[in-house]
C-alpha cells in the first residue's frame, strides 16, 4: 500500500506533516555549517524561522540552557535582530527555500502584533504568520499575553485586522485551560493553532543550590513534555474547527504518529533537531512505515484517530 504523506493547513499544502518549531533550526546558519545543501533538499515540509519582535532583543543573560531528564530547559529570551532586519536580510534568502515559509512574531506590547502583521502582510515570500503569544509582555509586567483568553483575543484581533495571511497562533501550556485560550484565538480570527510552547520550569545547581539559568526560570522542552503536549492537542483539536499543529517532544516517527492521531494536521520538531539536525528525515521516512504497518493510507485518515 502506498502511503500518502501530504497534508494541508488551510491553503498551505505540505508534502509531509513534519515542520520545524520556531527557534530550533536556523537554516541560514545550518546551511553554512553543515555539508547538506538545505536549499536544494529541505527536510521539513515548511520552515518557521526564529521569532522576531518589533525592536531587536539581545536575549537573556547566560547561562541559557540546561539539560534535564530527557528534556531541555532554556531561557533564550527571544534574542533576535528585529523585524526590519528580518524582512531586509533574511526574507529574500528564505524565499529560495523549496517549502512554504511561516514567519513567527511576538509582541512586547499588544499593539506590536498588529504592527508586525501589517509589516509582513504584503510579503510574497511568506505563506503564513505565526503569532507567538508566549512572550513576556511589557504591559503585563512580564506575563505573556497568551496566559489568558482575553489577552490572546486582543493580540489575535489586532493581527487579524492587519493581514489577510494565514494566521497561526502558538499557545502556551502554562494555563489553567488551554482549550479556552485556543477558542479565544480562533474566535479572534486565527486560522490555525500550534501547541504547545515550552512548559515553565527551573533547575538548581546541585552544589550551590542556586538557579542555574541567568534568567532564573525557563521553558522545558523535549521528550519529557510529550504527554503534556499530546493531551493539549487531543483536547484542543476536538474543541476548535481550525487545524492544529502539534508539538512538544516530537522526537521519533512514533511520536509524530501519535500527535497526528491525537488530532494534529501537522507536527513540529524542536529539541530533537538539537539532538540531530537532520532527525526530521528519519521521522518522515519512519512515519510512512508506521502508517503502512497499520494500514493507514493518508494523514487525513490518521488525524484524530484517537478521538
Amino acid at each position, binding site marked *: 500500500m502506498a502511503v500518502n504523506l501530504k497534508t494541508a493547513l488551510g491553503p498551505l499544502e505540505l508534502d509531509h506533516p513534519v515542520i520545524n518549531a520556531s*527557534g*530550533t*533550526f*536556523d537554516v541560514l*546558519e*545550518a546551511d*553554512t*555549517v*553543515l*555539508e547538506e545543501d538545505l536549499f536544494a533538499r529541505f527536510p521539513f515540509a515548511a520552515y518557521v524561522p*526564529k521569532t522576531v519582535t518589533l525592536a531587536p532583543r*539581545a*536575549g537573556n543573560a*547566560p*547561562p*541559557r*540552557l*540546561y*539539560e534535564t*531528564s*530527557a*528534556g*531541555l530547559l*532554556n531561557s*533564550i529570551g527571544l*534574542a533576535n535582530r528585529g523585524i526590519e532586519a528580518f524582512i531586509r536580510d533574511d526574507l529574500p534568502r528564505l524565499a529560495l527555500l523549496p517549502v512554504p515559509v511561516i514567519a513567527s512574531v511576538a509582541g512586547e506590547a499588544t499593539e506590536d502584533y498588529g504592527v508586525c502583521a501589517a509589516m509582513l502582510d504584503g510579503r510574497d515570500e511568506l505563506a503564513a504568520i505565526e503569532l507567538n503569544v508566549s512572550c513576556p509582555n511589557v504591559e503585563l509586567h512580564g506575563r505573556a499575553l497568551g496566559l489568558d483568553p482575553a489577552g490572546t483575543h486582543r493580540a489575535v484581533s489586532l493581527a487579524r485586522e492587519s493581514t489577510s495571511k494565514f494566521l497561526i497562533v502558538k499557545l502556551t501550556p502554562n494555563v489553567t485551560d488551554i482549550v479556552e485560550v485556543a477558542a479565544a484565538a480562533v474566535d479572534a480570527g486565527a486560522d490555525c493553532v500550534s501547541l504547545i510552547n515550552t512548559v515553565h520550569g527551573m533547575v538548581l545547581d546541585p552544589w550551590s543550590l542556586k538557579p542555574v539559568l541567568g534568567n532564573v526560570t525557563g521553558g522545558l522542552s*523535549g*521528550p519529557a513534555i510529550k504527554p503534556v503536549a499530546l493531551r493539549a492537542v487531543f483536547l484542543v483539536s476536538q474543541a476548535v474547527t481550525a487545524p492544529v499543529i502539534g508539538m512538544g517532544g516530537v*522526537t*521519533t516517527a512514533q511520536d509524530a504518529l501519535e500527535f497526528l492521531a491525537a488530532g494534529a494536521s501537522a507536527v513540529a520538531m524542536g*529539541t530533537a*533537531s*538539537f*539532538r*540531530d*539536525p*537532520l532527525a526530521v528525515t528519519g521521522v518522515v521516512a519512519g512515519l510512512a512505515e508506521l502508517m503502512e504497518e497499520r494500514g493507514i493510507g493518508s494523514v487525513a485518515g490518521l488525524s484524530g484517530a484517537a478521538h
Partner: protein
Amino acid sequence: MDAGLIPAKLFECQVAESRPVGAYRQLALVAPEIAYLAHPGQFLMARLAGPALDPLLPRPMCVHDIDSDLVKLLIDPVGKGTAALAEAEVGDRLSVLGPLGRGFDMEGEGPAVVVGGGIGVSPLLLLTRALLQRGREVRCVLGFRNRSQAVAAGLFPGAAIDLLTEDGSAGRTGLVSEPLPGCLVREEGNPAPEIFACGPDAMLKAVARIAADCGVRAQVSMDTHMACGIGSCQGCVIPGPEAYRKTCIEGPVFDTRDLKWQ
C-alpha cells in the same frame, strides 16, 4: 586554511580505544574524515549512538588529538552527558557531528605560550603538536586541581612544561596566572609571544587581563553549555564588547579582545 569553513557532517564512529588519563578518560574514535579535516581548537557534538533519550543531547567535545584515522577526546565526567561518554567501551558507537566551530589561528610567528587549566588542556594537545610542527617555540603552562588531574600533563610532547597544582600534589603549588607574566617577556629582535589558552572562566579572565597588561595577543577556547552546536539555539552565547557572541559558530576560540571580561 580558514579554520571555520569546513562543512560539518554527522558520523557514527566506533570507539577504538578507551583509557584513563588520571581523573580523565581518553577515547579514540575511528573518524577518518574528521581526522583529515579538523583544525586545532575545533569541536564535535558527541553522544552515544542509539535511541536512548536520557542523556538527550550531544555534548560539545574539543578535538583533543588526531592519530592517523583516530580522533581522540579527553573527557572529564562531570555530568550525566560526559559520564555516559566516558563509560563508552571499545566497539560502542558514538553519534558525532563535526568538525565544528572556529579553531586557533596559528599563523603568528612569536613564541607560543600554551596555557591550560584542568580539562581545558584537551584542545591544547593537538594545538601544541601543530605549533611544534610549524617550527614554533612552545612553552606549556598547565594547571590542575590535584595530582590525579595532572596526569594529563604527561600527554604533552616535546614542549617545555610548567606544571602547577592547586593542592601542591604535583609540580609547583599555585595557579597558572602566577608564572604566566614571566613567560611573556619579549626577547630583543624577536616577535612578541602569543598566548593560546583553554580552562575555567576565572583562569581565562586572568589570562585576558595578563595579555592586555603585557601587550600580547591571546586566543582562548571558551566552554559553554550547547544544545545544537550549529548556531540554531542561541543557548551558548557569551558577552562580547557590543553584543552576545555565539560560542558554537563565532568561537569556540576567540581573541580575548573580542569578548567582554566583567
